[in-house]
């Protein structure tokens, strides 16, 4: 079976700044100028108050693992060569959640609520994905 190319994000006009920043290894999040809420994923207007006065701010890049899974078998064709790989929902310090991959880790040592930090993985010339790796915890050296 021929492995298809990795699926690329289909960016919108209003998410373009997020992907442009990721290419430069920066995690930018939208923030509402009116209600001050952080927003992920990028929206055309604030999902909390409806304002269209949205700006971009650099995020801390730190968060915790809300949940995770290690893909072992029956992956989508484009990811079949990557197993085992880790898919996780990350809760960022800013209070938003995002799906990502956890990289640079021993999957057997992962757990819910574990602290992680952002790292970037290049997909192609246009897209770089924000991924995460475990933060070394006291008493749990890597």
């Amino acid at each position, binding site marked *: *079976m021929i492995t298809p190319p*990795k*699926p*690329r*994000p*289909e*960016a*919108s006009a209003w*998410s373009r700044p997020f992907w442009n920043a990721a290419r430069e290894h920066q995690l930018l999040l939208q923030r509402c100028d009116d209600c001050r809420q952080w927003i992920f*994923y990028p929206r055309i207007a604030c999902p909390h108050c409806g304002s269209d006065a949205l700006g971009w701010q650099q995020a801390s890049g730190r968060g915790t693992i*809300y*949940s*995770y*899974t*290690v*893909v*072992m*078998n*029956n*992956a*989508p*064709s*484009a*990811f079949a060569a*990557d197993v085992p*790989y880790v*898919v*996780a*929902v990350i809760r960022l310090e800013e209070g938003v*959640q*995002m*799906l*990502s*991959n956890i990289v640079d880790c021993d*999957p057997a040592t992962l*757990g*819910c*609520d574990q602290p992680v930090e952002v790292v970037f993985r290049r*997909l192609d010339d246009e*897209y770089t*994905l924000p991924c995460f790796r475990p933060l070394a915890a006291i008493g749990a050296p890597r």
Partner: protein
Amino acid sequence: MHRNRGRSAIVGIGEVPTGRFPERTAIEGALQAARLAIADAGVRREEIDYVMPTGTLFSFQFGNELATARLVEELGLPGVGSNCQVFSGGSSSTNALRIAAALIETGRARCILFVHTDKLGTGVSAQGGIDLFSTAGISAEWEVPFGQHYSTVAALATTRFKHETGCTDEELSAVCVSNRKWAELNPHAFFRTPLTIAEVMNSKMLSTPLRAKQSNMLFDGSGAFLVTSAERARDLVARPVYVLGEGGAVTHFVYSQEPDLTRFGWAAAGRQAFAEAGIGPADVDVAEIYDSYPIYQLIAFEELGLCGRGEAGGLFLRGDTWPGGRFPCTTDGGMLSKGHIGAGGSVSLMIEAARQLMGKAGARQVPGARFAVETATGGTYFDAQVTVLGTEVP
């Protein structure tokens, strides 16, 4: 009393076996199911004034044929004023019944035929199925690029649920065993041989902690039901299945945006449905809970109030949900044992809920069943839809 409680009813059901049937075309399954439902209700074909097909996934061309009235013409229905598709993925059955009931209650329709058919067992390849379900309903921008697919979707909820409640792999596997016990009694189910917890726990790991036998498989299948007014229903059949209450909650599109992967919207949807129905969870005789993966069956069972949080796994493990148990659950075998047929996963459960209340469930009949609850959810569990049905109006 809620103004819509018991004003419409399911009067006929039709279904063909779920499985791999390369010779049975999708339209043949649809027509057989529709004709069975019409005969079951005893309505004249002329009486049907609304045809409501739902979405078909295996073929865009065929899906469009249903959306543009192929069923009306093939069945020869002269009195149809509207052919309109209702589709929300796995929750299509509940959303369709809600819309059908509303059309009946407002007098906009008198007799509605709902039909589902799909050919995911023999109409697509196994890898094609995985690839279809690595993108269908999953955000192309925010999740597909990270390798999200339905195994990871289910595994993410399972990991967090185990973390928060202490639910065990044995309990998750017991859901599969319970559903299999029912499927053994269902001639329309694909998997009918006995299953043990050890077999489930020794099956191939897909995405931790989710194993192969905790995952649904895709098959061919078709089903149909007829909805009419309560008054007309009492003329037609001995035991109308009244639509007593409905509730729903849409909680996300992108899976990572779900605020609570251990609860979803079931509690609010259940409260709404039970309040409208005028009964409580303790009154439920049979629970047809959406089960594409065991985690969703446990979560919905608990969030509806059928038991407390963290308690459902023990009920499945001890056999309380098995045939003869106190809490008969997903009595057609569900997607885990009967088989997943796309949007029809919950159509099967809706038909089974009606079948149990009609007293037509054969070897798996729950004796004296008066009230049933059915749940459904679409996409990456973007919604929680709950229907309460009954043979009497409280």
